[in-house]
């Protein structure tokens, strides 16, 4: 469950990054064009939903007290991972989000 929380947090911050002006180069590399305002809004909504889901997963895994602490720590960790990937391997920034999510879902279903 904590793995799922991290995966959700990472996917959430990655969506937020896609909506940011500073990262439109990455968006262009992925989709061939910069995100318009409607897409940006969608990314932000999706990002918010994923981060909230991460909070739920974390509180489910650790209990609400420790879970909230773990959630904050995971936000930082996933944000830093994203930053490093955007800087050094921008092409592999968003694929891991999907991979992480799928693996985390599988793990939480079968464990």
């Amino acid at each position, binding site marked *: 469950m*904590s793995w799922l929380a991290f995966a959700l947090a990472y996917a959430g*911050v990655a969506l*937020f*990054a896609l909506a*940011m*002006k*500073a*990262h439109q180069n990455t968006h262009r590399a992925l989709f061939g064009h910069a995100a318009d305002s409607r897409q940006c809004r969608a990314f932000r909504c999706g990002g918010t939903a994923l981060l909230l889901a991460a909070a739920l997963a974390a509180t489910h895994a*650790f*209990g609400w*007290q*420790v879970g909230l*602490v*773990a959630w*904050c*720590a*995971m*936000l*930082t*960790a996933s*944000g*830093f991972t*994203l*930053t*490093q990937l*955007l*800087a*050094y391997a921008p092409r592999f920034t968003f694929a891991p989000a999907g991979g992480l999510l799928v693996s985390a879902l599988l793990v939480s279903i079968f464990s």
Partner: protein
Amino acid sequence: MKNSFRQSMTWLHTWAGLLLGWVAYAIFVTGTASYFRPEITRWMQPEVAGHGTPIDAARLAARALEERAATAPRWFADLPDERTRRLLLLWQPAAGRFQNESLDPATGAKSTARPSMGGEFFYRFHFQLLLPHPWGRYTAGLVALALFVALLTGIVAHRRFFADLFLFRPGRIALRSWLDFHNVAGVLTLPFFLMISYSALVIFHNLYLPWSAKLLPPEKPAVTAQASPSSPTAWIAPAPLDPMIDEAARRWGTAHSIHRIEASDRGTARATVIFTRSELDSVSLRGRDQLKFDGVTGKLLDDRRLSATDGPGRSVHGIFYGLHLARFAGPLLRSLLFCLGLLGTALIASGLVMWTLKRRPKLATAGAGGRFAFWLVERLNVTAIAGLFVAIAALFWANRLLPVDLPSRLEREILCFLVAWAAMLVHACARRTPAAWREQLLLAAALFILLPGLDALTAGQHLAAAGRTFDLAYLGIETFFVVLGASLAIAAGKVARRVTSEGEAREGGARSASTLHANAADSAAPSSPQEVTS
């Protein structure tokens, strides 16, 4: 005069950050290490092999205290758990000071482990800085306050960091990438930093704000007067501890169980015995269960949570204290918090380095005083940032190399730490800046990478035993030494490359001009890219 709010805040951020940055860095490094205090102790005292259950250890402790201090009015026993392999006995004789003794938690015999502070060194350094009693804590409090100020002013000074979130542009110009890193690490660790620096101030509120206790109404009804440990007129035989231990085991189980036993007023009619459970599921340090027994009849008087009778002030204090110590964190969360600590450490280091990078262009026009200050800051940066790792590595080396039966061995380990650090200061003063950075980082890297080898040579049988039992604490620390050493080596290499690749660094200077933070100090940076070290 600073003519805008933002400039004032930037000024405050710069100087609060610089003047207390070196101490803050050392406090952060040792504090981060303290997340793994028992594991470091495990490595530094490899002779302590097993730990048994807390219940077994409690029985051993009760027997040992009965042998050593049958008539002492006060007893304490700190019991081992999965992480801590330590059975510490404390007792206060009828007349005299507290005495203590460490036992081997598996056998109950006197501990034969090499004298070493272990992880306790990092923990104590973190808030006492090896200074005499109140001064270390005052200094640490000042640093926590400065850190808190630096955080809040930093939000104003680096106001663009939300627009540039997740943005890190390495390898263009040195200042640009340092600033990117400072911004990203700063905004990402902001919740952690706020929590850590604020809770640091809250923990010692009695020390920093001693008047609050007098001004505020008490939250708890006054505790019934603590009996002075004077010898009782007639000794009333206390109840044996073993049935109480059985009762605690019945209520709490054997694994995550008794953490501390405290027997007070032994020999009098008021005698009590209090069992405290190790905390795990609640963030607050007050979220621990307690059993209170009558010390004469052995009857259970009370089974409650410490926090049950807390007022709001005590609850908040307990939560922040708990957040700071993070005892609630399991291995996964603990490692995550450890990484946040490392990131915070790097944040402070990047701020210190940036101070010199931004001022180097103006050095040519500076007076003698300004040049000396710059020289001094560069030296202190090298010593504080890179030299500290050499000193820590020296501590670990001393732990393995000093003979086990050396007199005052524990103090000599710490002496090695201090001597190594002082040597790094001398070295930093003697060498040019880039060379000093590179050599100290390489030295620290080599010392850390070679540690597992040294361990195999000097404590091979313990290492082999740890390998057989798959002792995660021991093997994890060995692995971390290598990873840390490799990271330090990479850092040393980057410093070296930056010194030699000025032409490459010159590209891309223009685009960063608008985004560099702060004020006039930046104007010179884009046109004359400065290296981290040259």
